């Protein structure tokens, strides 16, 4: 039951916000490479309407399953080919980045808000609040996310917003666990005691003193949870119980191309690689940030 870190000492002590952050970020290859890739994909998502050579929803039945340009039958008209409905694959790929990033960001925001509130209350007040939050986290961890998400989406009906809400309401556990430990650690520090002695309200102490000092941990967890949410959405959509057609979710694109994979393998290889690359970029950034913000944590 609770594999929650009992002692605050399980979290690395954060360095004080030292001078010269930029040189350290530049020297951290994980953050520069991962962050650079991620930035590129965010730009592609934002600029999708201008970058896409075609309308991602426009079907051209004379141009079905055209292979990408590096195949003999391919052409520059459709650099990544077209799907079996004759829709331009590159345009769908660009618009798909929007869905993945939207899912990652919204789920991290919703679950982050829930988990951080729970974790900070548990860590700050301890006692009963801590017991209740730890119990809720344990219950949540006992239920397999993918199964509960699949069942819930199937019952309510799949759509982008349903997937975001369901995942957001399910994925707060790691936020709660990490924020609880981080708050426990910060709570006993002098500046919190000073704020309390100065008569600051609990709300002010939590938001003004504790939150800014646990923020680095929050950012790291949010990064990794966003990646995990994107993977879950792709898996849900792949099983047909997530984002619905004709939206160009990468998981859905792989699902739609599954029957054609024997003859046109690139139909699943392209969205699959895009998904792997995005997760790789986010995880690399998250891991790098953790090393940067908490060097002792590297072991």
């Amino acid at each position, binding site marked *: 039951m609770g*594999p929650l870190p009992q002692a605050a000492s399980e979290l690395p002590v954060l360095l004080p916000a030292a001078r010269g952050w930029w040189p350290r970020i530049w020297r951290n290859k994980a953050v520069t490479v991962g962050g650079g890739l991620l930035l590129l994909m965010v730009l592609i998502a934002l600029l999708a309407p201008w970058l896409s050579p075609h309308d991602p929803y426009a079907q051209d039945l004379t141009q079905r399953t055209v292979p990408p340009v590096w195949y003999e039958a391919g052409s520059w008209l459709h650099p990544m080919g077209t799907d079996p409905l004759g829709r331009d694959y590159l345009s769908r790929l660009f618009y798909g980045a929007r869905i993945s990033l939207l899912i990652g960001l919204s789920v991290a925001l919703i679950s982050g808000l829930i988990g951080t509130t729970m974790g900070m209350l548990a860590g700050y007040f301890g006692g009963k609040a801590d017991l209740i939050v730890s*119990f809720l986290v344990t219950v949540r961890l006992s239920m397999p996310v993918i199964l509960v998400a699949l069942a819930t989406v199937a019952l309510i009906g799949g759509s982008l917003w349903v997937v975001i809400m369901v995942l957001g309401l399910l994925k707060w556990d790691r936020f709660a666990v990490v924020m609880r430990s981080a708050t426990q650690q910060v709570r006993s520090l002098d500046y919190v005691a000073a704020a309390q002695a100065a008569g600051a309200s609990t709300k002010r102490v939590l938001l003004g003193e504790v939150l800014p000092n646990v923020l680095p941990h929050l950012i790291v967890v949010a990064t990794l949870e966003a990646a995990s949410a994107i993977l879950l959405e792709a898996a849900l959509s792949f099983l047909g119980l997530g984002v619905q057609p004709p939206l160009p979710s990468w998981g859905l694109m792989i699902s739609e191309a599954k029957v054609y994979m024997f003859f046109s393998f690139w139909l*699943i290889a392209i969205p699959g690689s895009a998904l792997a690359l995005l997760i790789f970029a986010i995880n690399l950034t998250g891991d790098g940030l953790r090393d940067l913000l908490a060097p002792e944590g590297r072991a």
Partner: protein
Amino acid sequence: MHIYILKRLGLAVLVALAVSMIAFLLLRLSGDPAIAIAGEGATQADIVLVRQTYGFDRPLPVQYAEWLGRTLRGDLGESIYFKTPAAPLILSKLQTTMVLGLLALAFALLISVPLGVLAALYRNSWIDRFCLGLAVVGQALPNFFFALLLIMLFSISLRWLPVSGSDSWQHFIMPTVALGYYAAPAFMRLIRAGMIEVLDADYIRTARAKGLPASAVIFKHALRNAVVPVVALTAVQLGYLLGGSVVIETIFALDGLGYLAYQSITFKDFPVMQSIVLLLSVIYVVLTLASDVANAWLDPRIRVA
């Protein structure tokens, strides 16, 4: 020790109760389950009949208490799709999934233990960086995409392994790899971190100074102490693997609990769906309880917590 176990057991029962409540309420999310069960094109009279047959017209707490009582007696209701009692149906599929879960776990440990030990022994060398890089890449690869890549390579190009089904041991190879590789990075990082910590400890220096051979120091003294946190992670990971079996078994049409879960979800087979959510959660609760007791036994300091 006894008090510690009793406390943990009490907590486990409470968690299982909470999980059962959620599993029960989950199906009320869709609004009226009678409408869903009656299916499309059902008349108002059909719906009323379904509501009375299944007892949906009574207050929720009464329904829950009655459902819990039946569940505890092993009566999980009847499958709406398969028209057979749900309990024997689910139990007949459980073995396949447990075998798959354990094989995947064994596979994950088989790659992560040697890599974790190597990375720790040659810390900050190219071997270490290679292992950590492998972990980041592994975690970025979606398991359903990896499963399709395996099918493409081993079933279609090389024709070595069957695409789908569950008739022979060959049918388990690709599902095991596709499910297990995803758990490996977490194990590898933990073993690496544990080994690094242990290798710096005084008793390892003593063992080395005594002139023990390096292999004895690494395997008898260091690894044994580094695996303690791995026990706790094993229970957690096995729980994830059972959940992940929904995706992997569906891809390979492996006839286990995960595939049944997917079928019950797509066919809106509520009693089966509910029972599988409950069963997998209870298995997880039991696993973590077992790992807590095992950890307390391995490390007496935990017992007082």
